[in-house]
């Protein structure tokens, strides 16, 4: 199985053991995707991790955009902005960087 900074990841690049997550892994994952993590990225990643800790699931897109609007300003509370941060999608790429499981379903 593939590894990132010593932590096992599955075939889609998600951490096998969520407890393995640390900032170094997150930065490496972003680097592999050609994404340079800015303060805004970290704002989203922190929210994703906090939400997951409380609910054991990634937030719905609308919950995320509302939270980001509150945190970073109204102009940033929309999925277009989030896609500009995470080109493969805030749900999938964002969750992967944040060490959350991949959201799956009809999404």
């Amino acid at each position, binding site marked *: 199985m593939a590894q990132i900074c010593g932590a096992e990841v599955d075939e889609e690049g998600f951490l096998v053991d969520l407890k393995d997550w640390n900032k170094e892994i997150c930065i490496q994952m972003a680097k592999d995707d050609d994404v340079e993590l800015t303060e805004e990225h970290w704002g989203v990643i922190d929210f994703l991790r906090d939400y997951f800790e409380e*609910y054991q699931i990634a937030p*719905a897109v609308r919950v995320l955009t509302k939270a980001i609007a509150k945190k970073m300003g109204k102009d940033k509370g929309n999925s*277009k902005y989030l896609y500009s941060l995470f080109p493969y999608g805030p749900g999938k790429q964002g969750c992967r960087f944040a060490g959350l499981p991949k959201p*799956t379903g009809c999404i």
Partner: protein
Amino acid sequence: MAAKEFDIPKLPTYIEIPELNHGVMDGDGPFKSVEEFQKPLGFPGEKIDNWQEVAIAKMGELKSKYRSVQVFLDSCVKCGACTDKCHYFLGSSDPKNMPVARQDLFRSVYRRHFTFAGKYFPKLVGAKELDDDMLDDWYNYFHQCSQCRRCSVFCPYGIDTAEISMAAREILDTVGVGQKYCNQILGKALTVGNNLGLPEPALRDTLIDLEEEVEEDFGAPVKYPLDVKGAEILLITPSADFFAEPHIDGLIGYGKVFYQDGVSWTMSSYASEGANFGMFIGSYDIMRKAALRIRKAALDLEVSRVMVGECGHAWRVAYSFWNTLSGVGAGAQSSDEHAMRLQKQLDDRYPQPQHIIEYTHDLIQRGKLNFDKSENDDRTVTFHDSCNVARATNMGGIEGGQFILPRDVIKAVCNNYVDMERSTIKESTFCCGGGGGLLTDDLMEIRVKGAMPRMQALKEVEKNEGVNTLAAICAICKSQFSKVLPKFDFDPYMIVSVHQLVSAAIILDKPQTTNSSPDGQTDAEEPVIEAEETAETE
């Protein structure tokens, strides 16, 4: 996590039969399921040792249990009518994606083991052994079929490739070769209650958030109730409606329609999923397990109506199978006491189950909803018929109702509507490219290629009619289009829920004004009761 590179098909002026490219879609297929996802569904964790023997025995069982499968296997005369009807063939040019060729992967093995000629003169009748290569081909190419059934419309014998693909997937699961995407999701649906694995607290808070947002935006206390006992309607909707865009705007729309009607309704945290992937993997038992969660929710919540949100195959399962699976509608076995109880509990003055489109359509017909259509004047809309709705169900109890009702609803709320080319809509609709358990990133190549015919028809109406909005009533279609539209130079945000269009145009009664009903046909209950009950459960 670099995705595999592939050529995105060019959109032709009209669809032509492509030059064949043998083996262009060869491959390992989607990610395979592992023990963690296989075991809870009762499937072996990995490919079993005596898989050939078990697979052939399963094939024998299936052909006897589902007589249609055997008829489909026996009756093909190789006329070729289906060859150019599959969107995956048209988009990929791999001849194994011709429906007849896909069927023949299965049929050749059936002939070898279950027909006289195939047993004794296999070469003469194209009978083949189920060896490792064949099993790999099954796994790969039966996961390049979205079970959309377009080919069956054009087959003079009505051969349904979807059923063959379901049978093949069931055999694959039986020998331990399952698909990760479907089986992981089914595990969540059967334990947590929905495909996403969205637990009750997250769902509840998401809905409360939504209520705040809608009240803020529209100035009316529209509710999104969860687990309200004694509500009239139980809404079963795909969990994507809670989670994803543009789906959630459809959910907002349903809530507004319920609010305006004044009916009490609820969703269930136990059965918070309309989708039923049991159908995709061909497993009747698993499909039933998923359906029974809905029955339990309906019984526990003591509702008198069960309604289905915008989900394509959910409506097929509900419309075609719920009656015998769970007792929603007529026809449950008299020995099944829970199903009989539910049949008595549900109000037979309404269709059971009812589609949200049927419900909204009925309210429009009765003049109970008022719209400001100009709210959608920035849009020129076309409607994508989702395959399971189009080719496996009905709405409104009238011939072609599943085509008429959604269009009627759109036209009631939008001034600008045009259809795509007629050979690409209604019963001939082209699949979005992501149905049937294919909506996963590891199948992106076939999803994009399979979307080509739909995109071609869309491009024509964009060019000629100025269409800028594509409306659909299926969660899979909506997600698939969001992903593939930009690959064909469309705006990914042009895909909307039909109830998003309703939501934009509907005129809501604001609080403190009387909930007037101009035609006096009010059967409305007081929404206040429902609001109080919601508050109690928090």
